[in-house]
């Protein structure tokens, strides 16, 4: 073992050990300096310390055997090099560079991996948008809209980059090109999960920051996700649940948020919808309901409800285009045929007017359907 290794290398090596959860890692690094902790593990005497042993609980004999065996094959310098090659920065709790937003937490990760610009974490306001992976279309639509409008208002969106609500919220935030998005993931930062979120994943790392406490190459093991959820709760000023079943990952995040005194808000849904069971329960239990981004901004204290809902600033379109816009503004998405009928113009004229409204940012299309922005 070379003596020239920086402390971060031992941090990565320790995090890369199997059966190494956040609590065990914290106990080890609280007891010893990183190099000494690694030496203790490699020499099979880490578990002799009673605090570390307590953190390992009933598994301690198995943990001791596994760590001693695996540590022989891990080369700390190599692990650090691998992180650096993947563009992943390693931060140790208590050292310079460690995100201060996490450091204050009682369960802060002892070793934290960051991809992208960590200074983005210091956003003036951070809101977590979370929800089920099997979301309904309206849920996804709303998550997208909330992400977009909040990011445009300068609020960083924190989410887990999972399928469904998480990814929709981040897509919205990226579409707005506003405040930098923050992604907190359960796998290693070089292991994209789920694979078809690769584009959002890369875009978040590009425009914002990605965080994980899993070392590079770590697979998305089930136990890492509840641990990841506590980081989301920790980073957010407000946690907004868009859709959630009665139990599930989102409800665990809510629990972590309540433990940390973060405000939880929920989007009300139809009482018959299974996907809104959890959020409706939260509202019943006293959470603030969310109707649109304004509700969240008011809760953040960034605006006041008295400013009213609706668009501010630009004058609405005039003349024929204005008439078409008011048709769109009714709320439900409409198709070209219906619009042309109500607009009392030919398909071509309607299509041209819609294109004008879109170019000016008044209308947007989703497939064959148009709606006001």
């Amino acid at each position, binding site marked *: 073992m070379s003596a020239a290794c920086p402390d971060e290398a031992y941090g990565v090596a320790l995090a890369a050990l199997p059966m190494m959860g956040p609590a065990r890692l914290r106990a080890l690094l609280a007891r010893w300096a990183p190099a000494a902790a690694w030496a203790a593990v490699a020499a099979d005497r880490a578990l002799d310390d009673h605090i570390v042993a307590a953190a390992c609980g009933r598994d301690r004999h198995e943990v001791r055997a596994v760590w001693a065996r695996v540590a022989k094959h891990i080369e700390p310098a190599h692990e650090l090099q691998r992180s650096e090659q993947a563009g992943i920065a390693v931060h140790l709790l208590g050292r310079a560079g460690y995100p201060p937003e996490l450091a204050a937490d009682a369960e802060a990760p002892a070793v934290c991996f960051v991809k992208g610009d960590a200074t983005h974490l210091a956003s003036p306001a951070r809101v977590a948008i979370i929800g089920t992976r099997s979301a*309904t*279309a309206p849920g996804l639509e709303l*998550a997208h809209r909330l992400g977009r409008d909040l990011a445009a208002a300068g609020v960083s969106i924190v989410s887990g980059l999972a399928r*469904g609500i998480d990814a929709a919220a981040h897509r919205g935030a990226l579409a707005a090109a506003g405040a930098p998005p923050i992604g907190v993931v359960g796998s290693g930062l070089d292991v994209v999960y789920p694979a078809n979120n690769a584009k959002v994943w890369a875009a978040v790392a590009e425009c914002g920051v990605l965080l994980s406490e899993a070392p590079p190459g770590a697979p998305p093991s089930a136990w890492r996700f509840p641990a990841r959820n506590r980081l989301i709760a920790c980073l957010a000023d407000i946690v907004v649940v868009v859709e959630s079943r009665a139990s599930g990952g989102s409800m665990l995040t809510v629990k972590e948020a309540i433990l940390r005194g973060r405000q939880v808000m929920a989007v009300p849904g139809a009482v018959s919808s299974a996907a809104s069971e959890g959020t409706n329960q939260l509202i019943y239990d006293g959470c603030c309901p969310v109707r649109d981004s304004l509700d969240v901004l008011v809760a953040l204290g960034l605006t006041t409800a008295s400013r009213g809902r609706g668009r501010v600033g630009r004058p609405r379109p005039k003349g024929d285009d204005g008439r078409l816009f008011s048709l769109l503004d009714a709320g439900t998405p409409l198709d070209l045929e219906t619009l042309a009928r109500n607009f009392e113009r030919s*398909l071509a004229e309607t299509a041209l007017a819609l294109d004008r409204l879109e170019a000016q940012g008044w209308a947007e299309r989703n*497939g064959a359907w148009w709606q006001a922005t």
Partner: protein
Amino acid sequence: MLAIIPSATLLGVEGRPVTVEVHVSNGLPAFTIVGLPDTACRESRDRVRSALLSGGFAWPLKRITVNLAPSGVRKGGSGLDLAIALGVLVANGDLDADAAKDMAFVAELGLDGRLRRVPGIVPLTAVVASAVVVVAPDCATEARLAHDGQVRVATTLKELVECLRGDAPWPDVVHPPDDANPPLIADLADVRGHELGRLAVEVAAAGNHHLLMVGPPGSGKTMLATRLPGLLPPLTSAQALEVTIVHSAAGVPLPRGGLVRHPPFRAPHHSSSMVSLVGGGGAYMRPGELSLATHGVLFLDELAEFIAPVIDGLRQPLEEGVVRVSRARASVTFPAKVLLVAAMNPCPCGEGGPPGACPCNEAVRHRYVRRVSGPLVDRFDLRVPVMRPNVDDLLGAAGGEATVCVAARVAAARACARERGVESNSEIPSTQLDEVAPLTRAAAALLRRELEAGRLSGRGLHRVRRVARTLCDLHGGDDVIADGHVAVALQLRVEPVAIDRFVA
């Protein structure tokens, strides 16, 4: 004794001349057919024997060998029955060889000696070099279409032998007249509402642009599709013969006059196999639905329910206009110039489409739409949502424009395309688009915005310009394409299911 009788067999949509050689010699009684016959062909032993006995002829108790030359080509079907029977008669000395000189025979035999029709009479008689061809009475009209010489018919083997011997006159060949009226096709006037859908079928017919309709069940997708053949111009005589040959080879009933003069409409069920759709199978390789629809409309209802590899098999033929089916023993080429029209539901429950309209899980909707592969969807120049029509339209008295009015515009637009040297606008090469479909400045700006927004690919751009060209042709045919036509062309090529933004 030896007899040599010409006939023909079918491979794909082409006839292959076959010489039937029958040799009767002394020896143990036996009847063998050599020369790669398939099952139906080998079974003709029993049909021929019974037919001869039923006709009052003696069955030679000798060694009979039938060779089907050229012996390397597989022979399928029962069309060689009659030639084999006459060969046996000639070889046995019951019939003078000169009586059947320069005559070919194509028919199946019944056990009672009756002559029956076989599939593919048009291509079969086309390749026969003899001056006279004899077929079953109900095949005479078809045989006349392609055969250069004389067509004769006979009801039974006995009658045929009497005619050949000169004991009886040849029966008259009756050619029924062509159907005066086109086949009954539902009229577009019955369609209420559906402004966008009507426009889509009109553009599809005028420019031969493939059309995909997406909408909830009962919204009128099938209704619109079935009216499309009425909008297409009648077939030219070359096209008509090509279509008739394919239909004849597949054994599809032909119209009374023999020639298929109107664009065919084929709507195979979504359980169709690859072979049934693109052709192949058996010794003689039957053309598939794709070829049967050539110069007409192939309608695939419930596109997402088709077996994925089967519809993906359509991709290459749609591009090339022909299907090349290759098997170990033979490879054949079928025509496949179709107008593809497909319909599907937006999601498993059928009610989806507008964002948030159906209870289906987003992942389920996504999976449903993904059943139709991207490259295939890309072949559709026109992708339109078909909504349930407005209640006022449905109950209102006035119908829409009638088929005849729309068909006139379609014919005019097709004439514009022919002036550019293409059959239809969908065939305009992308290199010529700047020349034949120049854009106004506003139209170019519109396309630029679409391209910059990433909603249009390079290939998509070409396709939109071709559709815009067709729209322009339908509205009087200015040389330069205005922005209104481009805007509508873009609206006719939307992602028909609101899905893309939120799911990767």
